């Protein structure tokens, strides 16, 4: 997975794209490559795209993943107070893989992420349509309790948000509320293994009872990851987990994500193309509320088949 991307700068965070001219999507959309064109001609990508035959209406370029599918989203749309933020997204997320969601600000990638653990339920006036199936089970079904769902799908946020309690209490919180652990000694073991898996044990072993707020930003983010994995979820959602961290802390988190991939299905939203390229095996590119292109990360970055994907990953916009 380690390969160099064209741009190493991490600050390709898009600004103001969400406010772009709405006709832009029409102008830019629809430039889908004919199926016949061979994707092997990497050197001629630019030229090929220029000659691409426009087709009417936006169509998703998708190469299906190999391996078992953990989450299958079909025609997912999200509305905030009647305003549509996400348009008919259909995406397969494979298990034991890191899937990166990339795209400019306001493109709907975080919104899509939050549909997978129903965090959008907590926002007043938010409506989700379509079907999201986890292990062939519709998570929006009435019979599914969001509390149980969130025990199976953990989440890490943009800014580290540990509880203002001790390090120990932070990690023990999930197992405690879900009643997974009863004995104190067992809890000690769970906390220790979660902290070890999050690569934080060495640094905090001697001060488990001190405040989590005394940790550095990077340590806090690893603590939050430890908190999420302490309940042994099946999926971990990460919403720009490194955007508030310095490069060294970012590197540690990225290593951690790579290790966690063996046990969990991970979905990460990132603004950093380099990060997407470094940590993910699958990439989905979102633009203006629509899924534009999805496929293996290497293909997306070296061989994008959509004009907008190419423009975004080469820094033309976003």
């Amino acid at each position, binding site marked *: 997975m380690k390969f160099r991307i064209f741009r190493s700068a991490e600050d390709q965070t898009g600004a103001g794209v969400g406010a772009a001219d709405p006709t832009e999507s029409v102008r830019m959309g629809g430039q889908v490559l004919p199926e016949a064109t061979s994707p092997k001609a990497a050197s001629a990508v630019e030229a090929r795209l220029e000659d691409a035959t426009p087709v009417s209406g936006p169509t998703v370029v998708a190469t299906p993943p190999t391996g078992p599918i953990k989450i299958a989203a079909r025609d997912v749309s999200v509305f905030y107070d009647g305003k549509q933020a996400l348009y008919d997204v259909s995406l397969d997320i494979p298990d034991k893989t890191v899937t990166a969601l990339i795209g400019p600000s306001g493109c709907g990638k975080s919104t899509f992420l939050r549909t997978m653990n129903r965090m959008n339920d*907590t926002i007043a006036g938010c409506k989700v349509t379509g079907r999201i199936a986890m292990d062939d089970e519709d998570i929006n079904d009435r019979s599914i309790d969001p509390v149980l*769902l969130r025990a199976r799908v953990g989440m890490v946020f943009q800014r580290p948000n540990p509880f*203002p309690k001790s390090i120990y209490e932070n990690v023990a919180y999930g197992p405690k509320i879900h009643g997974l652990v009863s004995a104190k000694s067992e809890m000690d073991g769970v906390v220790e293994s979660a902290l070890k898996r999050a690569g934080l044990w060495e640094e905090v072993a001697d001060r488990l009872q001190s405040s989590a707020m005394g940790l550095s930003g990077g340590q806090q983010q690893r603590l939050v990851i430890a908190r999420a994995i302490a309940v042994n979820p099946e999926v971990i959602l990460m919403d720009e987990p490194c955007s508030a961290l310095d490069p060294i802390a970012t590197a540690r988190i990225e290593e951690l994500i790579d290790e966690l991939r063996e046990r969990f299905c991970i979905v990460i939203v990132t603004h950093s193309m380099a990060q997407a390229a470094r940590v993910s095996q699958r990439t989905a590119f979102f633009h203006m509320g629509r899924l534009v292109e999805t496929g293996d990360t290497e293909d997306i970055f070296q061989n994008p088949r959509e004009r907008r994907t190419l423009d975004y990953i080469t820094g033309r916009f976003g």
Partner: protein
Amino acid sequence: MTDATPDQIDGAAAKGRLDRLRAGLKRRHAKETRFKWYGRLAIAAAMIFLAILMVRIVAQGHTAFYTHTVTVPVYMDPARVDRAYPQGSNFEQMAAEQQLKRWGIQDDAAGAASRQMKALFSSELKFVAADLVAKRSDVIGETVPLAVPLSDEADLYLKGEISRDTPEDQRRLTDQQLAWLDRMQAEGVVGSHFNTALFTNGDSTQPEMAGVLGAVVGSALMLMVTALIAIPLGVGAAVWLEEFAPKNKLTDIIEVNINNLAAVPSIVYGLLGLALFINWMHLPRASPIVGGLVLALMALPTLVIATRSALKAVPPSIREAALAMGASKTQTVFSHVLPLAMPGVMTGAIISMAHALGETAPLLLIGMVSFVPGVPHAIDQPVGALPSLIYIWENASERAFHERTAAAIIVLLVFMIIMNTAAIILRRRFERRW
């Protein structure tokens, strides 16, 4: 010129631009300095008003904290002491007559001199003597020294509040009485000491025996009722409105109403209390239960608003963190949001309690301005409250009540300071709890 790019600006233009910047800068600094001074002036004015208030109250009230006692030898004349009912004996007359006799002063037939002498002693003399006789009947026939308070007017004279320069017909004490007080003082039988009666007695018609304890206990009982009702209800309502309530027309109306209720004059709450608790529910008039209920109604809106703003100040990231961990809404609120909002909630609660403590207008309407002697000990008895006691004393005709009014104000202020200090201490403690 204005849209010239930096490299197009030549030397002169650059200098002109710099001058303009400098001139503007001077103006900006002047504005800043001026604003600082406005602030300082405002603070200074507030401090001066506070100082005037404090100095005024302390100057008027400090004399109430000490009082004068006279020690008189009283011969317990067996012919005049009623053994069966000591309170029935006229000890004051006995003491006054004996004092005149000791000084060799002849009383006239009407007893004018002994009446004047009697007026120098507090009527408490009777109870002190009667108590003694009731406890030890062997004192009858003996001469015992009795330490009794001077009457309020005599006390004021010794405190220098009554001047001999005032014409005799404009003061309560005659020249004769003043001369006797001077003589007593010369004989060294008058002593001054801390006015314990002020803190151990309830209200009394005799200023020298009147105290604030009854009102303090009344206020404390009332506040207890207020706290027990207003804090759980107010915090509960705020939590529901802020965290659980759907945002719709109904909750909007509730919110607007709560904000308006906070601005309703307190006397209106008094009227409501009168109509609701006394006339309709027939709860006992002037009792701490009714007072507490009325003050709770009054404190509720403020408490709800303070609690809601404390809840709003909790960062949403904490809610998200808890929800994403799979905590239910209730778990999120009660184990994360509310504990974090606790310092603000506590401060709001204590400030609204302190406000309730000082409230007078609603108490007037539920009958808490009546004279209540003694110290209450139940929530369904008529009681006094500190602010209404201040109101009653201020309207009393005896001059000695005026210094006691100021003293009662000092007691009330000390109460407030204690409550606010408690608020600060609790706040600190809760903030570094874990």
